[in-house]
């Protein structure tokens, strides 16, 4: 086992946990009941995925840390999630557009990871790919509904998309860990996912009558632990109980 392998699996878990944490904040606040349940379902899928990935990462590390230690016991700089996952939810258009952009990415990523030479990772990917297929369908459906909806829903969607676009470049900017894992057949070079992602997203945006922003400046740094100002607040809420009462069980 290499530490790159551990890091790779752990940060896949980070993306799932942080986005799951964001989505779960909608629980009880969604625009209508059916949506509330659907949103919470998606959040639970992501948190369940984070648990599997963290458990696997902890085994790879071989120390006495477990999934909870990885989720609740690390500081901001030690999280390697994409910045797009930690951005505040904004309005429903922002939440669902972000979700769609990440869902398409995850779907392609887990399709590719299905053939990973790490059998546990391949098994997690096989489960995740079914979940993400549904997530893409759901969030994609909403992107079209809201984008091609009323004047207000359209303009909110466009606003969200313009803001989010600068955070999509990071999804495909691999680092040394990605390269090493791709070379060993364990992971995927994220740059390879870009063409299919771009094509899928472009088609959906067109159907949603949304204007795809130009590729200008792109944010980055999540993988290296350099997060937005929102991450600390998110972790404070996420980790409070375990920080205040270490080892608490309920």
């Amino acid at each position: 086992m290499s530490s790159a392998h551990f890091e790779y699996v752990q940060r896949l878990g980070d993306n799932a946990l942080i986005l799951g944490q964001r989505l779960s904040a909608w629980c009880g606040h969604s625009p209508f009941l059916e949506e509330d349940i659907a949103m919470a379902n998606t959040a639970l899928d992501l948190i369940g995925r984070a648990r599997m990935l963290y458990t696997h990462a902890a085994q790879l590390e071989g120390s006495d840390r477990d999934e909870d230690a990885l989720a609740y016991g690390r500081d901001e700089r030690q999280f390697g999630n994409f910045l797009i996952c930690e951005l505040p939810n904004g309005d429903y258009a922002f939440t669902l557009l972000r979700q769609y952009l990440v869902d398409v990415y995850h779907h392609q990523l887990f399709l590719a990871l299905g053939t990973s030479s790490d059998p546990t990772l391949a098994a997690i990917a096989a489960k995740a790919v079914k979940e993400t297929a549904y997530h893409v369908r759901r969030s994609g459906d909403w992107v079209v509904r809201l984008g091609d909806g009323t004047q207000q829903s359209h303009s909110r969607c466009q606003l969200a998309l313009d803001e989010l676009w600068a955070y999509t470049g990071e999804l495909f900017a691999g680092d040394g860990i990605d390269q090493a894992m791709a070379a060993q057949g364990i992971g995927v070079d994220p740059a390879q996912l870009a063409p299919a992602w771009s094509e899928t997203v472009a088609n959906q945006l067109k159907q949603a009558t949304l204007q795809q922003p130009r590729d200008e400046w792109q944010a980055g740094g999540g993988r290296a632990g350099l997060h937005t100002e929102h991450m600390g607040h998110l972790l404070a809420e996420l980790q409070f109980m375990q920080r205040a009462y270490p080892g608490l069980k309920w």
Partner: protein
Amino acid sequence: MSSKHLPLWEIFIRSRRGLDHKHIGSLHAADATQAMQAARDTYTRRQEGVSIWVVRSSDIHASQFEDDAAFFDPAADKIYRHPTFYDVPDELKL
């Protein structure tokens, strides 16, 4: 939040292959696609089903309470319509 509701849909779930779809509840959705997804998320999240039907509630025609006497009471004294006159072998479990 708008006080205007989306159309109501009745949801039917087939719990296992070989069984009939059963009415399980209702929900609000803009159209059939959304109703299907909402039904999946609301009613099958604990492995309750393998197939979903969604029907607009307004498309269901229900018998009326005031028709109860005419519709259902006459069947009450027609005991000969029940197949109770056959000798059922003991081995046959009903």
